[in-house]
């Protein structure tokens, strides 16, 4: 697939703090690429550097063959994390204004606006005042505003925040549809389940540095090991002595035993001692959510693998 956006080795300083320490990734046509990380990791700063709202102190942002300030920004759609709409204007007026800023023809924009309003359940709201919209409706209008000009690259910063599950579903499907039609999508979100479901690749960032970068499958194979959850009163030391264990977390009478990557689950289960107190037992894979939490709380999985087996 064609490379639409390429971020290479960008660095950014805020006064004396280095907030981006050499970030590099690509976004391809028709894929959904997630940029993940805890609050303050540098996601929004990275995005603002791509959008030319600020410029990196080092490194390059390339869109097709354009660099830095030459990037044709009307080919990019952007839904920022901090977003809103003018209050005392009509929905259609705002959408047409956004379209005109992107040099998109007015009549086409009008048609697209009406189509999308209908698609997102806002039929007939085009001449309503923005003030009359609920928060969720407002978000939908903002979303339409970011795609009204048929961008080649769409950057969505936290598109799901504040949406109810139904709207989340609508957004998710719409984003997938856009990707299917060839739009390159860079998406930042904290809703790990949604990211896991819809993204092709992901880039995880913490403290301005790359932590994980790869396709969803690669990441899962590499990081999403098995874990065994047991409810029952068991001694931590006993559990830690089991084979192929990287780490054990205990709270009350629930123990989560993290297993090594190469573990054979059935074999491992057979080796459990009879003395264990088992009220409930389940084995599943570590989710993206847990990988994320581990990284955010500095329980670096890779390090623990070597450390806890000893």
């Amino acid at each position, binding site marked *: 697939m064609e490379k639409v956006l390429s971020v290479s080795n960008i660095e950014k300083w805020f006064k004396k703090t280095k907030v981006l320490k050499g970030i590099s990734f690509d976004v391809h046509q028709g894929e959904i690429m997630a940029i993940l990380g805890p609050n303050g990791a540098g996601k929004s700063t990275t995005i*603002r550097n791509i*959008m*030319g*709202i600020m410029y990196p102190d080092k490194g390059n942002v390339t869109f097709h063959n354009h660099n830095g300030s030459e990037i044709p*920004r*009307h080919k*990019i759609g*952007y*839904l*920022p994390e*901090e*977003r*809103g*709409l*003018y*209050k*005392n*204007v009509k929905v259609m*007026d705002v959408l047409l*204004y*956004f379209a*005109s*800023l*992107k040099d998109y023809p007015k009549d086409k924009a009008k048609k697209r606006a009406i189509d999308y309003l209908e698609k997102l359940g806002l039929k007939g709201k085009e001449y309503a005042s923005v003030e009359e919209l609920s928060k969720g409706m407002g978000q939908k209008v*903002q979303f339409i*505003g*970011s795609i009204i000009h048929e961008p080649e690259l769409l950057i969505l910063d936290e598109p799901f925040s504040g949406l109810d599950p139904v709207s989340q579903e609508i957004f998710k499907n719409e984003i997938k549809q856009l990707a299917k039609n060839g739009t390159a999508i860079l998406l930042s979100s904290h809703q790990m389940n949604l990211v896991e479901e819809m993204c092709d690749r992901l880039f995880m960032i913490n403290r301005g540095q790359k932590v994980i970068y790869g396709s969803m499958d690669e990441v899962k194979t590499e990081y999403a090991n098995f874990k065994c959850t047991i409810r029952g009163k068991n001694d931590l030391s006993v559990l830690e002595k089991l084979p192929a264990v990287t780490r054990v977390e205990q709270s009350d009478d629930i123990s989560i035993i993290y297993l090594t990557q190469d573990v054979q689950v059935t074999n491992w289960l057979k080796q459990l001692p009879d003395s264990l107190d088992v009220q409930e037992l389940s084995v599943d894979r570590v989710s993206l959510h847990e990988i994320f939490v581990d990284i955010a709380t500095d329980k670096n999985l890779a390090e623990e693998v070597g450390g806890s087996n000893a």
Partner: protein
Amino acid sequence: MRNSMKVANWEFKRNARNKSFIISLFITPLLFVIFAMAPTFLSNFGDDEDSETTVYLNDEVGVFEAIQPMLEDRDFVSWDVVETSDEPEQMQEQLNEEEKAAYVLINQETLESGTVTYMVGDDVHDDFENELTILQQPIKQAQLQVAGLSSDQMQLVQSPIDYQLAFEGEASETEAEETGGFPFEQALPSIFAGIFLFSIVISGMMIFQSASQEKKDKVAEIILSSVTAVELMQGKILGYFSLGILQVTVWLTLVAPFAVWKLEDVPLFEYLFVPETLMLLVIAILGYLLFAALFVGLGATIEDYSTSGNFQGMVMMLPFIPFFLVGPIFTNPSGIIAQVATYIPFTSPAVLLMRLAVLDEWPWVEILIGLAILIVSIWIFMKLAGKIFQVGILIYGKNATPQEIWKWLRA
């Protein structure tokens, strides 16, 4: 520039359709007309109350004829004159009953002694004695007639002394003409430019709101993904400038018929369309640009006006400083205060307009120095505002302190 125009167009349309803007657009000239009418209206209203003093005039000399036209005009007094031949003693009782009435006796004795005898009822206002001066001229005339003066002599005695400047230049001639006509011929272009300046600065203050609101509504980042911060800022300045023009056009269109009606003999438009007007408008526009830069930068630092500090409030007051200077400048338009204020960019537009309204000879050197300082200041303020705007508009959730703004400026 194209992007700036788009922003300007949007800001203009958005506000021009806004209900509160439209309402104030039409209410302001209405208020102006009301205020212009109020004094006349109120004084007429007051007249009704204590008007119509019944004056019993015992006129044995025949001055009544002379004052009759003046009484009919009712410009000076409102008397309802009833001629009578009663003596003061007889009137006493009647005035006791009829409280809003007076009695005036003018007879041979009046002419000899120069003393007019009169009596008033309880309700007659204190000004009545002043009103009696209306009788002075005819009585004097009658006195002179009695003294046997010829009509030429009488003319001479009665004509007032005139004072005339020895230097008979062109100026004094025109001035002599003017005193008879409209006193504001020279000031009219300045008044016009003043209204213009006022209107665009007022709408310029909306830039502040607009920038602050954009920050509050968090639209800025979406807009900045399509245009640069400087384009957005320029667009706002341009948009609100057009809004100010719209405002002043509406005002003048609404007020002009009223002004023409009120000042029917004055060729207003002839006085207005002179080359000076153009110069004064340029000064007004420069004034707008300075304050616009100030407001747009400031607006980007404030998210919530109710919790903003004194600093921002003080900056908002800057355009109004010239109002404090109105007194000193009109008393002495070439004085030291006027000169210094001409060189301070915040005061110079308004002060220049005031000075040029009253000065016969324009102090070109001062004007040019003042304008040069103003233009340089505008350039500097635009640069600074651009810096503040760029950083400020994307900082969410708080107002910037002066220290922070200082840091952005140095960055």
